[in-house]
Structures are given as C-alpha cells and as structure tokens.
C-alpha cells in the first residue's frame, strides 16, 4: 500500500506558481503596491500634504523625483500616500463583498427552494444599481468621503460574490461527499462550514483579487468626480482631477497617478488570472 501521489493540496504548489509568468508579474506588482502603501505610513520623501507654493510645478529632479504639483506638493509622496487610500478602499470593499456575498450565496445554496429564490432576487436588485449611482445616493445621504466610496463599492461587490458563491456552492452540494456528510447526520450549517466553504475558497479568492482591481478603479473614478476621498487625504483619482487643469502645461501630473492606477489594476488582474489558472482543475494533473 504505497501512497499514489505526493502529499500536497492539488494544484496549489509553490513550484508551479513560480513557473507561471503572469502570476509572478502580478504578485510582484501587487506586492509593490502594498509595500508602497505601508512605507508611506512611516516615510515619504516629503510630507504628501506639504504645500510649498514657491516650488510649484517643478519638473522631476534630484529633490522632487517626480516633480511637484500646482501647490508645490511632492508628486511621489502623494502617489505613495495615495496607495494607502487605494489599498484601504480595495480591502474594505472586497471584505464587505465577500462577507455579505458569501453569506448570502452560501445560505441560498444551502437552503434552496423559496429562500434561494428570494436571496438571489435580492442580489439581482442590488446588481441593478451601478456603483456610481450607489455612491451618489450615499454621498447625498452621508456626504462624500472615503467611507462613502467603501460602502458604495462594497455593496456593489455583494451580488458579485453572492452569485459566484451560490453557483460554486451548488456544484459542491451536488457532490457525493455532501451526501455522505448528510448520511452521517451533519446539518446544513455544519456541511456549509466544513465541506462547502473550503471547496469554494479558490474561486472566491480569485474573484477577490479581480474585484480588488475594480475597487481601485472605482475609487479613482469616484474621487475624480468629487464623490470620494476628500482633501487632505491623498487619492490617485483626485490627483487626476486636479491635474486636469494643467493637462497641456504639465501632463506628467496626470501621467504619474494614471500609471500608478494602471499598474495596480494590471498587477491585481494578472494575479487573479494566475491564481485562476492554478486553481483550474483542467490544469491539474489527473491520474
């Protein structure tokens, strides 16, 4: 009786991950985003909100690597600090989406019948409102701000995860090991916790990274519209908005936050794609 295979969880091995180019690039970019955000908490070249009118609109140079804006603030410091906002909004919005969405989706799959219908129609209802609209409504009620953005994007994420979870959970519920657990006397709640959730973690995490990217993009868009992050808290979206006036005289002011957004979104999407490939059963080795 020799074990037939090596003892790893199928598909998720470090070695295979390293051999996957888009996963590697995605992981590096995402890591850079995180490091930048964390670093900006303790150190930035200049204070990101330090107004210095005499040195306004400087070109990149030895003192200000990426130059300064119309108030003389250091662009690099603002981009670094802006990463904080993006990261925070992304984490919180995805957390709200996963928390509520998985709860709804898993409950719908476990309960079935009318409960399932009701829960899923509820998510359809939420889905019908775009994040922007939700944000405008929320901004009207509680005023614009980072929290508004987090809630708007978070609520928009809920149906995404609810649908994904329900679909994946339904597939797991149809497996024989669920029947075996029922035959052993396990209740729906225990089965969901012990069997269903561990088996649908992979697609949820993959979707999580992709929704993270969407959230960063949405935060930038909302801040650009003035519904999101308020000064003095730095935000890439607002940097873009403020750079608009100088688009022809100092285009770099728009380029740097734009590149930061693009790289962050690209990195997270590549990471998500890579994780999806790793978790894809078709790419796993079968007997």
């Amino acid at each position, binding site marked *: 009786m020799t074990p037939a295979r090596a003892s790893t969880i199928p598909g998720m091995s470090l070695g295979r991950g390293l051999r996957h180019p888009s996963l590697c690039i995605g992981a590096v970019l995402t890591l850079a985003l995180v490091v930048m955000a964390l670093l900006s908490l303790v150190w930035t070249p200049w204070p990101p909100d330090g107004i210095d009118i005499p040195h306004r609109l400087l070109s990149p140079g030895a003192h200000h690597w990426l130059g300064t804006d119309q108030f003389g603030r250091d662009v690099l410091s603002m981009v670094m600090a802006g990463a904080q906002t993006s990261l925070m909004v992304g984490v919180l919005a995805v957390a709200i989406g996963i928390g509520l969405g998985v709860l709804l989706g898993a409950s719908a799959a476990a309960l079935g019948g009318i409960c399932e219908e009701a829960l899923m129609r509820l998510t359809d209802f939420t889905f019908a409102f775009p994040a922007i609209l939700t944000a405008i409504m929320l901004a009207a009620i509680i005023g614009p701000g980072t929290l508004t953005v987090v809630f708007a994007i978070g609520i928009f994420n809920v149906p995404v995860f609810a649908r994904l979870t329900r679909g994946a959970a339904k597939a797991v519920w149809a497996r024989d090991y669920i029947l075996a657990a029922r035959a052993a006397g396990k209740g729906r709640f225990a089965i969901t916790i012990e069997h269903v959730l561990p088996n649908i973690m992979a697609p949820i995490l993959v979707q999580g990274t992709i929704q993270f990217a969407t959230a960063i993009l949405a935060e930038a868009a909302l801040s650009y519209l003035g519904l999101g992050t308020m000064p003095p808290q730095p935000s890439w979206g607002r940097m873009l908005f403020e750079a608009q006036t100088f688009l022809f005289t100092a285009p770099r002011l728009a380029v740097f936050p734009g590149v930061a957004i693009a790289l962050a979104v690209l990195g997270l999407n590549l990471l998500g794609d890579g994780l999806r490939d790793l978790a894809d059963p078709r790419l796993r*080795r079968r*007997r």
Partner: protein
Amino acid sequence: MALLEVEDLRVTLPTARGPAAALRGVSFSLEAGEALGLVGESGSGKSLTALALLGLLPEGAAVGGHIRFAGRDLLALPERELCRLRGNRIAMIFQEPMTALNPLQTIGRQIAEPLRLHRALSRSAAADEAIRLLGRVGLKPAAGRARAYPHQLSGGQRQRAMIAMALACAPDLLVADEPTTALDVTVARQSLDLMAALAAESGMALLLISHDLGIIAETTRRMLVMYGGQVVESGPTAAVFAALAHPYTRGLFAARPRLDGMPGRLPTIPGSVPDLADLPPGCPFAGRCALAIAACTAAEPPAVDIGPGHQARCIRLDQQPPAGDPVAGGPA
C-alpha cells in the same frame, strides 16, 4: 499489408513530477475486417493508445514509434491531413454517449455533419443518408429519431446514434473505447452485437477497448492485454483464454466476479494498479506478482512466443501452473 500497424509506440506525458512513460513500446497490427480486443484497467494505457491512433493525445505528450494506417505514418502527418482522416476513415465511439453528443443539435444533423464535411454531400442528401444510417443501426422510426435531440433518447439509443455517426463515412477503422460501460447490461449486449455485425458486413476493422474480459471474449477473435503501458500478452482470443499465460491475465481472469462462480471469497491480485508517473523498472506487474523474482525488476521482460501468434512478456512462464488451476491470490 495490414490496415493498421502500430510499431513500438511510445508516449511520454508531462506530469507535475516529471515526464511519465505512459506507453512503453506498444506494437500490434490490425487487418481490414478484423476485430481486435484491447483489455486493460485504468492506467494501463489502453485509452491513450486509442487517442494516439486518432492523433488526439493530450497537449505536451511526446510520441515515438510508428502508426501506419493504410501505408501512411499517422505520426508524421500534419494536423490537416489527420483531420481529413478523423471521422472519415478512422472513426471513434466514446464511453459516454451523452457527453459525446451535442445536446443542442438533432441527432440527424449530427450524423449528417461528417457527411457534408468529408463527402461533400448536399444538405438534403446528407439528411437522407442520416436517416438511412439510423435505420441501419436499428433506431426506428428512423425519420422520427433523426429529428430527436439527444436527451429525448435512452442511453442505448444514444449509443446507437453514436454508432450511426461513426459509420456515416464508412470508415476503414472503428475505435470503440469502452463503448458499453455506461450502458445497461441488456442494452450493452445489443450495442456490441450491432457493432460486430456492422464491422463484419462492411469489412471495417474494429478496435474494441474494454476492461471487461467477457465483452472481449464474445466480440473479438484476437486480443491484447495491456498493463503499465505495455502489451503483456497478445494472441488469438481463444488461445489467450485457454492458456492465461501471463500472471496478470490469469489474475484478472480469476478476480472477475462470475455469474456461475462459487460463492465465497474471490481470488485477488494484491496491491493496486501502479501510477504511470512512477512505474517501477523492469516488469510493471512485478510488484503484484506472486511469481516475481529479482530478475523481473532488473529488466523489461521480452515478448516470448507461446503458440501461433500468441506472445506474453514474462520470464516466469515456465513457473505458471497450467490454466484451469487458477493461482489463489493472497488476502487483499
């Protein structure tokens, strides 16, 4: 010259733990109008052999050896040429008829498709031909069945539709991979009889792949037994069953539950089928064989002639008691 000649076919598959020699020198030939049985368990390489014949090996597989079909080496043909052969001169029937049929198209349309593709028939001519084929495989009323969707047919009927589809272009070779495993006992028999009868009638060669010794015994005249990516025994079906020369053939035969068997314990082959990714050196069956000696694991045993056209890859053939006195296996 034989219709199909497979010579020293070797397939290496990429796996997480490095390349795996999944086929290790498979050779056989098949004449026109002949039915050849291929017996093996999961991981024996029998399905891989079929896929190699059709040029449908998984991505990344490395192939060696020769597959000569009507004088042409299939392994050297470009993909376009292969496509022209596939479904036209070489047809395949799969294990699960439900997944091999497109649920969104009528049976008639799916049968007509290869006709239009390979024989350039007009739409209406192909439709007529499809109805004729359905009648030939016993799906009646044929015109009505042609309009049916796969889910409207029973398992046996679907398998008949698959057979009709495979026969559409009057292929020279029909490869049937476990064609009856998904079918009920009574229906399986009819499906097999139909295939054998159609093969005999049209001079088509049949390669029947199965894990079921009974099916092979009833349908074929010659058979191969595969284990661990090798043909361990080959010969006329009657001779193989009479001699049960290779210890694996014998063990497989004894382990099979039989309708007329004695109740009680079944003889077993200890252990389980080895993983193709890490086959032991030498004879792949050595680890489970009661007759194994050190020499068995030292080198791959050569094929030994036992009778006319009957060979086995075993160096301990002289130690095997005569057939009819099956070796009793140890406890599981």
